[in-house]
């Protein structure tokens, strides 16, 4: 074997109270597609941040093409040929693609030249992208292309991708994989972080599995089953959520022609949404982000008011009710964005428990807070949902994304809602935590609650939904029983919800 492109030897990094990486060693060869697997908090992010120069290791060394490699900052890493596409995009909505790319450059050439280079790279790698379009109008997949092309313009030797497919449609994933394979064939190594094991099996040459900061195994993903890899990650047998068959109950929530204007410039208007949700069912709503998911959740949670008669809960018109009045009668919601929407990053978990639970859990009397009660409620959520944190007095921002997600979803479920609306419940959450969240949602439905799950992850929706509907440009398709839906049918529903019925006849 030739000289590896990147060699990590004994990388160790500790934070107060936790060891994020402990003696991590592995190598990546030129052109290799290497998967990095692990649960949330296993140390994947710390490791790639180390490679990208955002974190300094306490011990251990790295070598790039045989030369010692210790980037002091991302700029140095980029100069050495390491590029990274983050899970969260850093793009300005109001600027166009070329301007956004210029912002990330040390000495940006004129706009026209950038636009030309973007066009040539996007042609070369089959990533369709118009440099003159405003980023706010792009889909998540197209935004990701902006980030990828930004990296490719640096001609990287190693491309790090953190959870790249979590926001993509199946078609967009295909395009992305084609590009990655082409890059790999040209000699660019790719370090690929994902929870989706099937993807890793189709794309990657090698996989390193991390658990609690240590390498617990390496495998050839093409030879290893997804289940085996998952169990290696978790270190235990994986439980697949089980769905009990049950008769459907009475309608608890009914949307009748729910329409709403887009709340802001880059929002989506809701158009004539009709929907009935019954006790004890899980309704899955699929669709690519930005098609009205946030707005639908806001209309149901009470953050956005709607006109009379559009939202009925057990027959009562609730469209004008503020959030806490809805919580009081049992209509709860968990929005997609954890940091800053579902939770306040700088506040403690106890305070974040108060955030939505004060009404239903009686955490206040005459306006005064019961800190003891709030704390014990936070403790209950932490215990029931296996939230990894030293205690409820810690700030929400100190939790990893998946742990905070477990807390946020757990906080709503523990209040025993009658209708729960969740948006992207397992986004960026590792396999075992995602399975636990899905199981909790199913359990909630089994106890008689109606659960609306909005997600981009079709596998997830098929796994837990009784009925499935698709959201497209603010329109919702008529829900259909999830069982027996084919991928083609789902694709058609997603492609254009409004003419779904006709498409169904053709299909």
């Amino acid at each position, binding site marked *: 074997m030739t000289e590896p492109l990147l060699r990590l030897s004994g990388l160790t990094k500790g934070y107060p109270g936790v060891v994020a990486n402990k003696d991590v060693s592995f190598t990546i060869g030129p052109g290799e597609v290497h998967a990095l697997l692990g649960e949330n908090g296993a140390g994947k992010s710390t490791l790639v941040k180390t490679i990208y120069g955002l974190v300094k290791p306490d011990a251990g060394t790295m070598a790039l093409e045989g030369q010692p490699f210790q980037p002091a900052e991302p700029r140095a890493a980029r100069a050495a040929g390491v590029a990274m596409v983050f899970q969260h995009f850093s793009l300005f909505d109001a600027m166009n693609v070329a301007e956004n790319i210029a912002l990330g450059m040390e000495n940006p050439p004129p706009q026209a030249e950038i636009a030309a280079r973007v066009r040539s790279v996007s042609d070369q790698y089959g990533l369709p992208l118009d440099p003159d379009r405003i980023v706010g109008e792009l889909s998540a997949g197209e935004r990701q292309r902006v980030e990828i092309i930004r990296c490719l313009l640096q001609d990287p030797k190693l491309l790090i991708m953190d959870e790249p497919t979590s926001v993509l449609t199946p078609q967009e994933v295909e395009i992305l994989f084609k590009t990655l394979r082409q890059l790999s064939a040209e000699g660019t190594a790719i370090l690929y972080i994902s929870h989706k094991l099937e993807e890793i099996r189709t794309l990657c040459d090698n996989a390193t599995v991390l658990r609690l900061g240590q390498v617990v195994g390496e495998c050839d993903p093409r030879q290893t089953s997804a289940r085996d890899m998952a169990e290696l990650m978790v270190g235990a047998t994986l439980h697949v959520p089980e769905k009990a068959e049950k008769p459907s109950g009475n309608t608890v929530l009914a949307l009748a022609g729910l329409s709403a204007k887009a709340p802001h410039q880059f929002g989506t208007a809701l158009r004539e949404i009709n929907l009935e949700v019954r006790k004890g069912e899980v309704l899955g709503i699929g669709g690519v982000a930005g098609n009205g998911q946030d707005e639908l959740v806001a209309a149901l949670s009470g953050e956005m008011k709607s006109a009379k008669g559009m939202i009925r809960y057990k027959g009562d018109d609730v469209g004008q009710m503020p959030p*806490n009045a809805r919580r009081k009668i049992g209509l709860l919601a968990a929005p997609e964005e954890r940091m*800053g929407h579902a939770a*306040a990053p*700088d506040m403690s978990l106890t305070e974040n428990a108060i955030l939505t639970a004060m009404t239903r859990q009686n955490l206040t009397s005459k*306006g005064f807070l019961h800190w003891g009660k709030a704390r014990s409620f936070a403790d209950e959520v932490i215990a029931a949902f296996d939230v990894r944190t030293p205690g409820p007095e810690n*700030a929400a921002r*100190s939790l990893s994304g998946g742990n905070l997600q477990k807390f946020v979803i757990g906080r709503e479920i523990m209040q025993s809602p009658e209708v729960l609306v969740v948006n992207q419940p397992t986004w960026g959450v590792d396999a075992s935590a995602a399975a636990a969240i899905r199981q909790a949602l199913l359990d909630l439905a089994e106890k008689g609650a109606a659960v609306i799950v909005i997600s981009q992850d079709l596998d997830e929706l098929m796994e837990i939904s009784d009925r499935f509907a698709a959201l497209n440009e603010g329109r919702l398709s008529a829900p259909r029983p999830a069982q027996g839906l084919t991928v083609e049918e789902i694709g058609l529903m997603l492609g254009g919800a409004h003419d779904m019925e006709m498409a169904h006849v053709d299909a």
Partner: protein
Amino acid sequence: MIMLEKRPQPSRGWTFATPVVAVVLTMFFGGLLFAALGQDPLVTIRTIFLDPLFSEFAWFYRPQLLIKGAPLVLIAIGLSFGFRAGIWNIGAEGQYIVGAICGAAVGLAFYPIESFVIFPLMIIAGAIGGLLWAMIPGILRVRFGTNEILVSLMLVYVAEQLLASMALGALRNPDGMGFPGSRNLSQYDSAANLEIIAGSGMHWGVLTAFLAVILAYVALSRHIFGFNVRLSGQSPRAARFAGVNPGMLILSCMGISGALAGLAGLFEVAGPAGQISIDFNVGYGFTAIIVAFLGRLHPVGILLAGGLMALTYIGGEIAQSNLGLPIAAIQILQGMLLFFLLAVDVLTNYRVIWGRQVA
């Protein structure tokens, strides 16, 4: 090389240590500054920070500390609610003036009747005056999305003109032989903001300031209103999700800061100042902004910061008269205090990493 790394959560130790470190740094660099001005740094620092409390004339200065500190604390407490919620009322000076005018007008309307209800009525009028003046930027922000920083600040200048016109017109002392300025309220028993204990400086405004500190502490740490205020400042979206009505919150915060500034104005006009005059206001409303931040927007912190600020005022005056120090030097010292506080504040959220640690 020095690097800053964000802490997973704010350091509790540094939260308390920063103000102390800032004061120590201010004393040190202030001392250097005074030395450069040809003064003995130790003597100067002692004059400013210790003489008001411990010199042979401290009996005169200590009451001054309460009189100067009370309006600062009262206004700063009110501002701290808005500042925590991300609502920037910069116009407390204007609300202070209007509170004083309204309170004084009620008192003067009763002159010369003596009754125990007059002073309480004046207090209510002062609070309402400040509150209404603050509602102008508040309502404009909620209804039309105007910037409350600009509107509240500009209203300070409107209030100053109003003050001048009152001193020269409607509220002018009819027995004042044409001189501008109202009757002296401190000589009108029913309207006077008297010292509760003679010679202590402890007037009703001081008592109100202490009460405000306690109530603010309870509201912020135990009450849902304080929780909503903190939540709105940290994550406006999460606040809306939690059911906070942003418009109501803006009006409440503006109202509280306006009412407390108005109260401070009333206590000042009925006590230490005595009358409505053209130059009645001396900038308490602006200095209170520094006090609020120096006190970390925390009620107890504000109490200490108000005391410290009052100390530098009084100490500055002593240094001016006894040592001939220019007033600008004192103002630089006060500026340094805020500067060092903000600089050291970085350590609460970040830890310093020295470059040689690189592995």
